[in-house]
């Protein structure tokens, strides 16, 4: 819980700048560092989280519902059908460059799909996977 104000402050300080995915990820790593001690972000855990199916929303059981099985591909909104540009940084250089946008979509999508806020560790793993997948 204490991590939330820290994350918010760190993000606010970066809000006006474009950042790299690594810088944004580092915010969450720092916040997660207090939680299991010695946390290191993992692309493999991020990959597993990306593919996990949650039991909250039957139209959107997981990230893949909109972003498809490969984040390198364009996706499609599960309800409206709207085209969604790829989520992987390798396919879309704009991803994870705007801290406010990253937090906004974690906030919305975790609530809607996972049913709760994602932890800083989950966010760090997620960004790591999407920064590295080719």
């Amino acid at each position, binding site marked *: 819980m204490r991590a939330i104000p820290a994350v918010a402050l760190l993000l606010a300080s970066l809000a006006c700048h474009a950042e790299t995915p690594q810088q944004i990820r580092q915010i969450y790593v720092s916040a997660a560092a207090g939680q299991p001690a010695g946390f290191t972000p993992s692309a493999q855990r991020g990959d597993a989280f990306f593919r996990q199916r949650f039991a909250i929303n039957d139209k959107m059981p997981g990230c893949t519902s909109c972003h498809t099985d490969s984040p390198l591909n364009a996706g499609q*909104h599960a309800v409206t059908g709207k085209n969604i540009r790829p989520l992987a940084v390798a396919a879309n250089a704009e991803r994870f460059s705007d801290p406010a946008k990253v937090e906004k979509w974690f906030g*919305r999508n975790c609530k809607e799909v996972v049913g709760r806020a994602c932890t800083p560790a989950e966010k760090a793993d997620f960004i790591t996977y999407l920064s590295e997948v080719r």
Partner: protein
Amino acid sequence: MKRIFLIALLGSAFPAMAHRLPMPANAPASYQAECSSCHMAYQPALLPANDWRKLMAGLNEHFGSDATVDPKNGAEINAFLERNGGDPKRLGSAGTPPRITQTRHFTHHHHEVPPKFWRDPRVKSAANCEACHSAAAKGNYSEHDIAIPELRE
């Protein structure tokens, strides 16, 4: 005789211009930023002002999703939509909650579309204008520029 013929020919071209629906020039950047991720940024003329107001007041329950925006952007977007809303007499009632696809204006223009086209996975929903009107975001809904022939295969 030739002049009358020419004028009649030109006059018959005007109805095609009725399907140009550009985004107003004064659209705030927040409208695209906040309202074009899950569906296209609909041109404000597609709903009357009071229906836009209803939608913006109920964003926490926006067709099954929580689409709330921060108060500053929300006020800016709401003002833009109300200022540029369409003519309610021409559009007809949008229902509750207001849906562009429920207006008489929409149903009249789409009454020839077979129900199965709306369910085609390439379309998915009548809210997905761009599936058939690929230049919808630029305001081009011309019936001569539609991708429907692909759906007929």
